[in-house]
């Protein structure tokens, strides 16, 4: 067998093996999207109920709460970035990090100091490589987010927010995550989490537009105190679930195009290998014919 032919066969085999792996990853991601989407749907009733309650509070009480008041001067802003623990998801992490970078640049230009909170190994690797400071991070479980993690993140951020800026508190909190639009589209989204804007960027409280006049127990302030952190937590949890679903969708897409590319490579190399084999045969025939001719002419 000619050297060229052997090289081609090797490349075909290598592409075939890669294709098997990417195909398997594609199938796994596909089944996980389903699960992730179901979780997004399952968390719907909770976030709807919380949002509705907070809207009711916001529209029927004029109380000021630390979490809803705009600070006079914003000295420090926090950005919470939701990335994934694993790569192989196309532009998933690049998109969200780029968006966060733009946001940070904008906040800087407004004269604000920016601190970063990260979720997922990929964002941490990105920050470490560039030697940028990380305020706090959470790893593990980005594929299958837990409520407890959301609770912890919420707690950390709210505590930090309630601290005055002079003691290292932050005056603004933004979150950046990939929103799951469809299986094909996931868009990076920037939302300002705190101070809260309940009216804007939230699901409408449903068909009954007029909220009833609620009685609060124990009283408005206590309910507000208890509800707002829960609301923030549910927003964070929702972002985590969306991000997980997006990640799986991105992985599926990336792995599908990898499998397609492998297919194309296999096809191209098969053509080349066939060509090489054929030319080898042609050469052998012409050598035999040439040899026979030479023998015949000697006689």
């Amino acid at each position, binding site marked *: 067998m000619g050297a060229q032919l052997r090289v081609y066969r090797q490349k075909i085999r290598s592409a075939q093996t890669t294709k098997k792996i990417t195909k398997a990853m594609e199938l796994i991601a596909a089944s996980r999207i389903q699960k992730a989407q179901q*979780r997004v749907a*399952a*968390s719907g*009733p*909770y976030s709807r*109920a*919380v949002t*509705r*309650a907070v809207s*009711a*509070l916001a529209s029927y009480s004029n109380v000021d709460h630390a979490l809803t008041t705009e600070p006079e001067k914003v000295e420090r802003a926090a950005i919470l970035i939701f990335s994934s623990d694993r790569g192989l998801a196309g532009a998933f992490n690049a998109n969200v990090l780029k968006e966060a970078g733009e946001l940070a640049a904008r906040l800087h230009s407004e004269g604000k100091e920016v601190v970063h909170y990260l979720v997922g190994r990929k964002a941490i690797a990105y920050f470490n490589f560039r030697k940028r400071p990380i305020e706090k991070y959470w790893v593990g479980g980005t594929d299958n987010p837990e*409520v407890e993690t*959301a*609770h912890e993140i919420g707690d950390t951020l709210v505590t930090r927010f309630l601290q005055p800026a002079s003691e290292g508190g932050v005056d603004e909190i933004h979150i950046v995550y990939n929103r799951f639009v469809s299986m094909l589209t996931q868009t990076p989204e920037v939302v300002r989490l705190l101070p809260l804007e309940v009216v804007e960027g939230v699901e409408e409280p449903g068909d*009954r537009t007029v*909220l*009833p*006049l*609620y*009685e*609060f*127990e*124990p009283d408005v302030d*206590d*309910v507000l105190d*208890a*509800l707002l952190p*829960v609301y923030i*937590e*549910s927003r964070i*949890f929702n972002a985590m679930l969306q991000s997980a679903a997006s990640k799986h969708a991105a992985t599926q897409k990336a792995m599908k195009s990898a499998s397609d590319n492998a297919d194309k490579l296999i096809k191209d190399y098969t053509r080349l290998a066939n060509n090489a084999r054929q030319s080898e045969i042609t050469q052998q025939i012409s050598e035999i014919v040439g040899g026979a001719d030479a023998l015949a002419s000697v006689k």
Partner: protein
Amino acid sequence: MPLTVSVVSADHEVWSGEAKQLVAKTMIGEIGILSGHEPVLAILDVGEVRITLEDGNVVKARAEDGFLSVEHDIVTVVARNAELVHTDTAAR
């Protein structure tokens, strides 16, 4: 008119259905909800929520870190961690 009750936790709906009465423990004591109750938003203490169904069976759920909202006979028990404690025969 029966109450429409749903108990939801952060990641799923724990229970939903129609009920006659609901008793929950709030920060300042137990609250009982019957049909026609005024709209209420109450913070729940850690404890049991008892839901009495139309047929008299009782569904109990444990709720932690949550609140209760009542409006137009729609009762929503919202808690980060909620689970059914024990479901009597006919309840789903």
